[in-house]
Structure formats: structure tokens, C-alpha cells
């Protein structure tokens, strides 16, 4: 049975947690021994107002695997965005909200759902992955909570149009010439990322 979206209120520990964190950078990391080599997206977060999250990322490298709950949704007054609500249970209890623009950052969400995981890094260790590949980061497992089905409907229309526009005419010609016109650009991206 298809789950229905519902309006929920979730408890926060302080007012800082109510605001979504700003994503200042992203990357895709594929390592042989994590997630079977699947590319897992990395988001670099502006933690200027969230010293708790910054400290959590730092201490996590010295402790065994933690515990996290996650949920997808739309925050009130945020049209065209999807929010990922991460509830950390250990090593520390806190909530982090990541908000993604469906059109501009939809590929990241799509990749999170495909890889079922997400790396989180603080901006203090650089706003580009390449600047500090050994920076401390958390790997959060994001299981499918039934959101993937909604996401397919949300993402296909706006994202496909944008991808078609951004692809070069030469590549579009090549794509049609190879007999792959039945495949949408999103399917290509997913095939690459799976």
C-alpha cells in the first residue's frame, strides 16, 4: 500500500535545530569498501550556527557507529523544496534539517535515494571535498521510507526539462543515434549512479 504524506510535528531540542542547514558544497564519493562501491553523495554544511553538529562530526571519528533516524518531507512555507530530517540518537542527540531545491539539487536527493546513504561534512574543514579529502565526515544511512515513489513523481518533470536543456545538442544527437531515445536523462543519471 502506498504511504500517504501526512502533517507531522517533530520535537526539537533548541531553536537552532528548527532552521535548515545551508548546503555550501557537494560531491560524490565512491569507495570499494563502503556501500558496495556505489557513489554516495557528500554534502558540506555551513555549521556556523550549529556548533553541536560540528562537534558531533568531530567526535564521531573517535567513536563506534552511531544511530540515526531519518524522514523526508516538506517544511511549511518551502515550496519546490524537499527536506531531509536527520535525528541523531548517538553519539549525541540532535536534529539536523537539510533542505534541497528540487530542480537545482534534485540530483543529490536522487542519488541519496539510490545509494541509500549520505556523507555529511562541516564547512570548517573546507567547502570543497578536494581541498581536504581526509576531513571528518559522517556517513548516514538513509533507508527507503516510501518516499522514493513520491520523489519519482516530484523529480521527473522539473528535472528532466532542466537536464535536456543543459545537455549539449551534440550529446542529444549521440543519445538519439545510439537508439537510447526511450531512456530519459534521469534514467541515464541513475544508471551511472547505481
Amino acid at each position: 500500500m502506498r504511504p500517504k504524506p501526512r502533517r507531522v510535528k517533530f520535537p526539537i531540542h533548541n531553536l537552532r535545530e528548527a532552521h535548515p542547514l545551508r548546503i555550501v558544497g557537494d560531491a560524490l564519493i565512491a569507495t570499494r569498501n563502503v556501500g558496495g562501491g556505489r557513489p554516495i553523495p557528500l554534502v558540506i554544511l555551513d555549521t556556523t550556527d550549529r556548533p553541536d553538529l560540528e562537534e558531533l562530526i568531530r567526535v564521531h571519528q573517535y567513536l563506534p557507529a552511531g544511530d540515526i533516524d531519518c524522514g523526508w518531507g516538506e517544511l511549511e512555507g518551502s515550496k519546490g523544496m524537499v527536506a531531509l530530517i536527520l535525528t541523531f540518537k548517538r553519539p549525541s542527540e540532535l536534529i539536523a534539517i537539510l533542505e534541497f531545491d528540487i530542480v537545482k539539487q534534485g540530483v543529490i536527493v536522487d542519488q541519496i535515494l539510490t545509494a541509500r546513504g549520505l556523507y555529511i561534512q562541516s564547512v570548517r574543514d573546507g567547502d570543497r571535498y578536494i581541498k581536504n579529502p581526509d576531513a571528518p565526515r559522517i556517513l548516514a544511512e538513509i533507508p527507503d521510507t516510501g518516499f522514493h515513489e513520491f520523489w519519482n513523481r516530484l523529480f521527473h518533470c522539473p528535472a528532466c526539462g532542466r537536464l535536456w536543456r543543459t545537455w549539449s545538442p551534440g550529446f542529444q544527437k549521440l543519445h538519439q543515434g545510439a537508439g537510447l531515445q526511450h531512456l530519459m536523462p534521469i534514467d541515464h543519471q541513475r544508471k551511472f549512479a547505481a
Partner: protein
Amino acid sequence: MHDNLFALAEIATAVAAWQALMLSSLGLIVSSKALRVTEQQEKRRKPRLVPNLLDGYVRHDAHCRVYVFLLSVSNPADSDNAVAALDLRSTYSTKSNFQMTIKIPSHTEFDKAFQCTADNPFAIPVSVHAHQTVPGWAFFRVKQALLDGAIVEGHTIALLDSHGIESQVEPIMIREYGDATETTPC
């Protein structure tokens, strides 16, 4: 004659009514007592673990600090229970004066430095039967780098039972192991 009969019938009816009232009142008292007993039994069946801290030490070395606590966990309930998880919650202030609490899970491996604790480690999960008390030494290993430059403000030992109910105990004074070994009763 008829008047007497009517009067007798009225008296008999009144007596019967009083008797019925008495009996129903008695039934009410008995049933309320039975309900109270059942409620108390249910209350006693409600899972609850009571942790007690008997002793606590800390040992520092170059790479980590090891906390070791002698705990006894009692189960005053009428139903069996188990300790599913055991955490040491350290509250500290960071260099930027921000207060943080982290959960350090209990270490399953015995620490060789604490020879006297070898006989009775508190290995998770531990089953605690009804009205039973289980003692044991719990280890928590914290890397020095984790608390580098931080000021530790307090510790709490939290245990989670099989029903997800949390109980806590707060160690006030933790002795340095090296200094206290002579007085350790083991």
C-alpha cells in the same frame, strides 16, 4: 386483618431492600479491593530496572582514558527483564565554550589494566530475572583526542532495558585507578 398483612409485606420489602443494599455495598467494597490488588500486581509487573553504583575508577594513558564502574542492576518488578544497552554520557565544554553531551557505549573487551575486575565483567546484553540483582564491572574507553582541550563537567551512566525504558545513575566521585588500587577491595 388486611391492613396488618399489608404492613407486614411493606416491612418485609423494606428489609429485603436493605439487605440488597448491604450486599451490593459489600460487593462494591470487595470488587474495589480486588481491583486495587490487580492494579498493584500490574504495577509490579511494569518493567523497571534500578541501577546502583558501587565503585568507579578512571585510568589515563597516552591514547585513551578508561572508565570502569562496578554496577549492580536490580529488577524489582514481577516480570523478567534485560539490560540491552549501557552508555556513559559525558557532558563537557568545548574550546569554544559550547556544552555537549556524548554517549559512549560500554566496551565489551576486558581491560587488562584492571585485573581485579576480570572475574565479573558486565557484558551486554545481561538478563535480569524478576526480583534479581546482577552485579558487574562496566568499561568505557574514551580516546584522548575526543576530549582534547575540553573540560569534562559530569558523567551519567544510562542503561536501556529490553522495553526501551531508560534508567540512570550519576557517579559523583570517580577515583584515579593508580592511586586507588591499594584500597580496592579485590
